[in-house]
């Protein structure tokens, strides 16, 4: 676009260029052709630049990240009934992600021997909820949302229960399936 713009601008076109015959009845179509040609090639150039620009910016919308099972520790490290935060890596972190590739979940070993992994993201606006063990509640620091131990909303602004990650046990290790942050 820029190139086309600066090509067009430098010379202010005199009303009647000397090279133009004054009786240019048949020159008019030629002039119209040039003007259409210039507009068309400029538009084409703009598209050549614009498509990759926009495509690159919206790429995250189409790029589907694979979901991975991530081990968060041996089964017997988790006491039955307790809820603790566990940390794991995102699915396919970029080499320069550093600590931002880390994610946490609230993991509980349930009475029946299974595991539940709650998302740490408040369903109101995504802030990190904290588990208050004695009160058996999740509390959100941002706007005071409260969740029961089972993730259902107990009070405050959150519209939905806490999200959950799929969890499984493989060869004595607890594994969590990486998932997108659950936005409604």
């Amino acid at each position, binding site marked *: 676009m820029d190139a086309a713009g600066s090509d067009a601008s430098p010379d202010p076109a005199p009303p009647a260029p000397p090279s133009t015959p004054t009786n240019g009845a048949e020159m008019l179509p030629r002039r119209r052709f040039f003007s259409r040609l210039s507009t068309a090639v400029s538009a084409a150039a703009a598209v050549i630049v614009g498509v990759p620009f926009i495509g690159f*910016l*919206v790429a*995250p*919308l189409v*790029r589907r*990240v694979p979901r991975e099972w991530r081990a968060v520790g041996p089964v017997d490290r988790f006491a039955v009934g307790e809820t603790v*935060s566990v*940390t794991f890596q*995102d*699915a396919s*972190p*970029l*080499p*320069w*992600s*550093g*600590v*931002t*590739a*880390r*994610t*946490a979940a609230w993991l509980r070993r349930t009475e029946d021997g299974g595991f539940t992994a709650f998302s*740490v*993201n408040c369903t*109101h*606006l*995504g*802030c*990190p*909820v*904290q588990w*208050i063990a*004695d*009160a*058996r*509640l999740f*509390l959100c*620091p*941002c*706007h*005071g949302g*409260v969740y*029961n*131990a089972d993730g259902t909303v*107990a*009070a*405050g*602004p959150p*519209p939905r229960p806490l999200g959950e990650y799929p969890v499984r046990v493989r060869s004595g290790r607890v594994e969590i399936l*990486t*998932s*997108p*942050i659950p*936005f*409604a």
Partner: protein
Amino acid sequence: MSRLLAWLDDRTGLVTWTRHALEHPVPPRTGWWYVFGSATLIAFLLQVVTGIALATAYVPASGQAYESLRFISEQALMGRFLRGMHYFGASAMMLLIGIHVARTYLMAAYKYPRELNWLSGAVLLLLTIALAFTGQLLRWDQTAVWSVIVAAAQAGKVPVIGTDLARFVLAGDTVGGATLSRFFAFHVFFIPALVFLLIGLHLLLVLRHGISERPRLGQPVEEATYRARYDAMLRSEGVPFWPDAAWRDAVFGAAVVAVIAILAVIVGPPELGRPPDPSILQAYPRPDWYFLWYFAVLALTPTSLETFIIVVAPLVFGAILLLVPLSNTGERSVRRRPWAPLLVIAIVTVIVSFWIAGAQAKWSPDFAATPLPAEVVHDTSAAVVEGARLFHSKGCEFCHQIAGHGGERGPDLSNVASRLTSQGIALQITNGGPNMPAYARSLTPDEVQALVAFLSTRK
């Protein structure tokens, strides 16, 4: 020297143009009300200069930005000062553009023929807000990470395309390596380029239509007569912009720069919080002061209105901004437009009260609350002491105060027994309310008994 200038003018025309721009006649007695636009521009230029300096050392990568900021703040020569300037420069720009918009609106300077001055300014206002938001995120600490997530969550509330928008904000499924770089690109290239373009247009329009004269009662703007009247006024009493009016812009602008520099030295840049690690859950994200009022809006909005406030209200605000110059003729004086100051006062009052609410953030549980000391409990019977212990351990104290200890989300319970009977207290604890969990499930009857025993002593 003058031959060089003449040569330059012959080849570029710039000298004549600049002289013309500087000496063009402006209305007399414009006064100090007219300095805020140029001061906003000066604040923006300051941002450009300090921003370029910071960008030479900042690493716009999710994993390294934090360390590079540490380096800038703690080791780089003048780094702390530059960060401070950039922060207070941003604050100044937000404040000044706000005042400039209010001034323009109050004096109805948007009326014929300056409608596009207003519109280009409105877009500049939105771009400034975008710069402030993206800039705050580049201070890539824990708060920044959670601010991105909160922003994505808000985008997620948009019907139909919400999830895609949220992914666009995060540049992926979660915060990660791709998140920061695009905010950096928007903050330092894309938005500033648009700002430069629009400032150019804005200034061109100011030169084309002239600075608006002070409104006069009983002199309505009419398309047929305004220009002739304005030109006649300039011919009879106009003064050259430079230096008759420009000196105020220079003095005020220099004062703005001086204040920013002083604050940068004395107060310094905002502290870097914890590292941008989303797995550190002890976080208390809150935005910089200029967005604190919106943080309060989000906290205080009832759930039923949420989508409206988050999605529709900004659109309505934008639409109103764009529609203002529709009333482009008629009286400019505030005395004939009494709603104008009322509207400005209303907006300022609403923002300031939300701002105060945001600064106090009473809706946030006080995670730092410590067990009530014995002298506050002052009853030594076993049930009461146990109740006081539970009051802390069960989380009541995060939201309720007793004798100044605890959070402020719920009512102060210092004198609860003078409002509620023991039965009422028990009911409230077990059943909860819209902002209080029902404790029936998480407390044994004995524990409820003990809590009631304790709270019944608070008369």
